């Protein structure tokens, strides 16, 4: 208890029950191949990739099937050996259908990866871009963009994010436990590419086993910082504050305080891409939640339909359930389970519908949301201003600084959907600027 209190952290935040125990102890399993995959041309922030295959083409697992369209964009690779069945608009976990390359897998294929040797770690950004790697923590920002430092800027510290502060999710935890050397090597490559003097891996104290494993494997080359168990510790700005004591100015990037933050899962993917030449065609997904009898982590090929993944863990009758992509604090409920697993998807959680108590009471102005907001905003005020559509005041109250962590809605005793309203407020402000 003393240890927890003394661990570095940020101000405010909340303490949801972490619910990780059941899936954290099980080794990462493997999701078998299914019949059909849908690889969306946009699973990242930035421009949609451009397909370079045609309907009817035979593709091999790991083969490049779509190229990045601009600097902020990514390559896409075939997750499976098979035939391109269609290139058409398909459901996407974001709720906005996008064009996708649909591949029918070849049931008789051994699913060997196409020949592709190790890549250069000299021009790491190029290798990472070739491999189609995005930030694996959820935001899915093309990773190569964050591997090159713009002219005239310097990065002194590379911060690796191993916090995984969302309840239920344990995919990063398992990767750190099972592949510490790969994570460390990936970290070292990224550090060299950025020219950073130091690299630190931030791990929450509820994963001290992972921290110990990393420490032992690193032999001192990388420091491991244990941070307090608190949500949203894994948010970039909060982690920088906790580990380095620096506050990223509002509207600025970590780069502006000389820091770049990458997820530990990204480091692992970078290592795989460089050492083994393996593009990003699968990722670890935590399948958990109160409705999942055996929560676990699985290697899942990108493009696997969510319904197939759920069927594999024994959930095929999903009447009156909430299926969430991502964590329970920031994830998104899904309406169409045909939507595929994408590169930024860290978890699929299933909650019974009855789990949600939606009765709303009036705001009693207790101020709990102000005490919870890690960005020191005034959520109850933003909620009111959104209802009044007062765009000027929303701007004055820094509505755009909200990164939608959901801490305000979590603590609200009146069950007011604060973060949902603030999301609308942000949209109002964005539309007014156009």
């Amino acid at each position, binding site marked *: 208890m003393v240890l927890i209190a003394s661990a570095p952290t940020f101000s405010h935040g909340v303490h949801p029950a972490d619910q990780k125990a059941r899936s954290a102890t099980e080794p990462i399993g493997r999701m078998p191949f299914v019949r059909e995959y849908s690889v969306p041309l946009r699973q990242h922030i930035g421009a949609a990739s451009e397909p370079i295959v045609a309907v009817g083409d035979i593709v091999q697992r790991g083969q490049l099937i779509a190229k990045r369209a601009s600097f902020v964009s990514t390559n896409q690779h075939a997750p499976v050996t098979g035939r391109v069945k269609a290139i*058409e*608009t398909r459901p996407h*976990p*974001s*709720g*906005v*259908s996008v064009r996708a390359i649909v591949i029918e897998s070849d049931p008789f294929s051994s699913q060997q990866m196409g020949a592709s040797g190790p890549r250069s770690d000299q021009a790491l950004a190029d290798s990472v871009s070739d491999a189609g790697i995005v930030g694996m923590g959820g935001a899915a920002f093309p990773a190569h963009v964050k591997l090159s430092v713009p002219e005239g800027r310097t990065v002194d510290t590379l911060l690796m994010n191993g916090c995984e502060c969302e309840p239920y999710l344990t995919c990063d935890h398992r990767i750190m436990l099972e592949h510490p050397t790969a994570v460390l090597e990936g970290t070292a490559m990224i550090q060299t590419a950025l020219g950073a003097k130091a690299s630190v891996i931030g791990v929450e104290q509820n994963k001290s086993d992972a921290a110990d494993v990393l420490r032992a494997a690193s032999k001192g080359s990388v420091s491991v910082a244990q941070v307090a168990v608190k949500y949203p510790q894994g948010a970039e700005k909060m982690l920088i504050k906790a580990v380095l004591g620096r506050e990223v100015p509002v509207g600025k990037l970590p780069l502006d305080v000389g820091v770049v933050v990458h997820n530990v899962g990204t480091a692992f993917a970078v290592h795989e891409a460089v050492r083994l030449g393996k593009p990003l065609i699968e990722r670890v997904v935590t399948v958990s939640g109160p409705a999942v009898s055996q929560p676990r982590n699985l290697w899942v090929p990108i493009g696997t339909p969510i319904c197939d993944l759920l069927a594999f863990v024994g959930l095929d009758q999903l009447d009156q359930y909430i299926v969430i992509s991502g964590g329970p604090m920031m994830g*998104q*409920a*899904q*309406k*169409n389970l045909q939507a595929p697993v994408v590169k930024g998807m860290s978890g699929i959680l299933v909650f019974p519908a009855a789990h*949600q108590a*939606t009765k709303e009471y009036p705001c009693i102005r207790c101020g709990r949301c102000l005490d919870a907001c890690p960005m020191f905003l005034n959520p109850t005020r933003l909620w009111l201003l959104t209802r009044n559509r007062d765009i000027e005041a929303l701007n004055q109250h820094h509505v755009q600084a909200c990164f939608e962590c959901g801490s305000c809605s979590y603590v609200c005793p009146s069950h007011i*959907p604060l973060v*949902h*309203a603030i*999301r*609308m407020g942000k*949209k109002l402000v964005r539309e007014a600027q156009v």
Partner: protein
Amino acid sequence: MGMSIFLMLGLALVFGTILSVAHRFLHVDEDPRIDTVADMLPGSNCGACGEPGCRAFAEKLVSAAAQPAGCSVSATEQVDEIAAFLGVDAGERVKLVARLHCGGGRGLALNAAEYSGMSTCGAAALVNGGNKACEWGCLGLADCQVACTFDAIQMNERLLPVVHPDLCTACGDCVVACPKDLFTLEPISQPLLVQCKAPTTGEAARAVCTVACDGCGRCVADAGEGVMVMEQGLPVIVQPLLTSRSATFRCPSGAIAWVEGSQFAFEAMEV
């Protein structure tokens, strides 16, 4: 007591002098016709003319930067009256109404899930794009009805907005309010309407909505040369004002609609 009265009188005198001097030297001459014209306008400040309010529009009218018919709220007689007062041409008056590019109301379009939360379209659209299987369709939570200043929009039994053409002033509030961007302002004389916005085609479109456009292209073929084209799975009307209904005849779902007057009706719904 006497002192304070004296003081107050002195103050009144000083400020009165300042005010009268200021009035004389800082006076801004304004065309008196602006006030008159502003009084003749409806005063609803709806913004349909593109100006921030009726007075701003009156200024534009007086300076001949706009034509009286630019006010879509005023009745024709009023517009003529203003034109006569200013001695200008009333301008061409095109009556526009808000039209919805979706016909997939309750019972017609499939719901993929059940939404629970803040009961506005804007809020629902933020949760995985809304509960409809068709992510382009009308969410039916009446943001347009709330936004309408003129009470011209009422939701019908299918949870589709019925726009009353006589009450609609084409102010565009519903166009802004709809998170799915389903409204456009169309000339009321233009009855041909593509009542669907889903780019999906074939079975994918038909599976989720009985009134979806599945991109068969029959309307484009039937409409005649250069009237409609297919773009991203949807027909687009490029040459408006049709008198012939031919484009609608072979539409299998009714997505290509011929709308005179109100777009949707209040109906007793059979479920």
